[in-house]
């Protein structure tokens, strides 16, 4: 019983510590410093129609799938 209470207390403390840590985070890249990241050449997926076609071609030619942060669609077959 005591150990259960201790576990709950410890968990609560950890959660509180975690939350206070979150509130203390200051954005280290300010909005006015994001001009380079906003440049179109920095987009992860600048051409959704093209990347979807390639992604689907790979999924048809290889045994792997998922884990990619790009758009999909398209083809590639037997």
């Amino acid at each position, binding site marked *: 019983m005591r150990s259960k209470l201790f576990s709950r207390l410890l968990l609560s403390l950890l959660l509180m510590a975690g939350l206070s840590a*979150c509130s203390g*985070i*200051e*954005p*280290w*890249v300010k*909005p006015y*410093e*994001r001009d*380079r*990241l906003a*440049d179109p*050449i*920095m*987009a*992860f*997926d600048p*051409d*959704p*129609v*093209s*990347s*979807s*076609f*390639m*992604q*689907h*071609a*790979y*999924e*048809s*030619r*290889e*045994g*792997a*799938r*998922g*884990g*990619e*942060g*790009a*758009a*999909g*669609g*398209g*083809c*590639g*077959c*037997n």
Partner: protein
Amino acid sequence: MRFTRGIAVVVLALFAGNAVHAGVLPEERTDIAYQLYTGGGVDINVPHVLVRKQAGSSLSFVGSYYIDMVSSASIDVITTASPYTEERKQWSLGMDYLRGNTIMTVNYTSTEESDYDGSNVAFAVSQDMFGDLTTISLSYSYSDDLVGNSSDPTFEEELKRQQYGVGLTQILSRNLISSLNFTVITDEGYLNNPYRSVRYADPGTALGYSYESELYPNTRTSSALGIRMKYYLPWRAAVEGEYRFFTDTWDIDSNTASLSYTQPFGPWTFTGKYRWHDQTGASFFADIFPRSEATNFRGRDKELSPLTSHTVRLKAAYEFIGGADGWKFIEKASINASVDLMHFDYHEFKDLSTGAPFPDEPLYEMDAVVFQLFFSFWY
């Protein structure tokens, strides 16, 4: 029909792409593309259109449509069947709803061909946090497909797929952005290709082997973890690295890595990319089985063989409308052309088309090229 099965993967990945800019609706744009895949005896011509338009400040709608026109005389087809042509039509409709720093997305996709019908529903939510430096996304999709067989009108099997995704996009510095995506996919149903065969040793025949239908497990669960990093170079160029680890219950493990470089020159933007993929084979894959029905499950799909692939991509984009004024309602427009040179080395799948006697057939290898030409308009 093989390529139909990737819809769920594709739709979920679409959301992961959105996660980069959660808190801002995707750009309004239209893409009109012609795409061609040619290699290994297969030609696929694809007209493809995508339209995205906002309604008010918090809703964005997207629709896409394309047709795969396939002509196939692949290594599988010429060794065990006859060349064929077919068409696949796919359309999808989606909606994004922006509220505060949250984007909620719903998407429906339908695909149709003579021997395969599929539909997919997908949901996703993404949230910006920590001063918009971090975006977290969660997604789920469900596919319900019907597999047919063009030579047997009574043949009909079901295939269901669920996909779960978690994504994290993180701004690390004013020059560096990263993205982490984890995907779990579960399939349940008919995962065979109804036309494909495996071969087994049959000393009583002239060839030394015979064929029988392949037989796959009815379930498959896979996990993939991908990481991407993109860095802005001091002379206005970008370099991107990507790595993915994949594993599944069929014992396929794979590593995929790529490196790309993007360099703008005035209205031109050039991109070069190299991609490498290496995988182990499925536990029930064999180029030849020792006898008929030798194992519970059997497959000779070359994509389930251990293999290594290499791709080199070159792409050029020319912005012909841009600057501060645009033209009428179009803010920006570009024409894009790309070529992807692909090479596949199969480590256990043999080439039976060379005429070499059994068991001295060479291992199969294949080159393929993807050409893409498309116009993009932003408004």
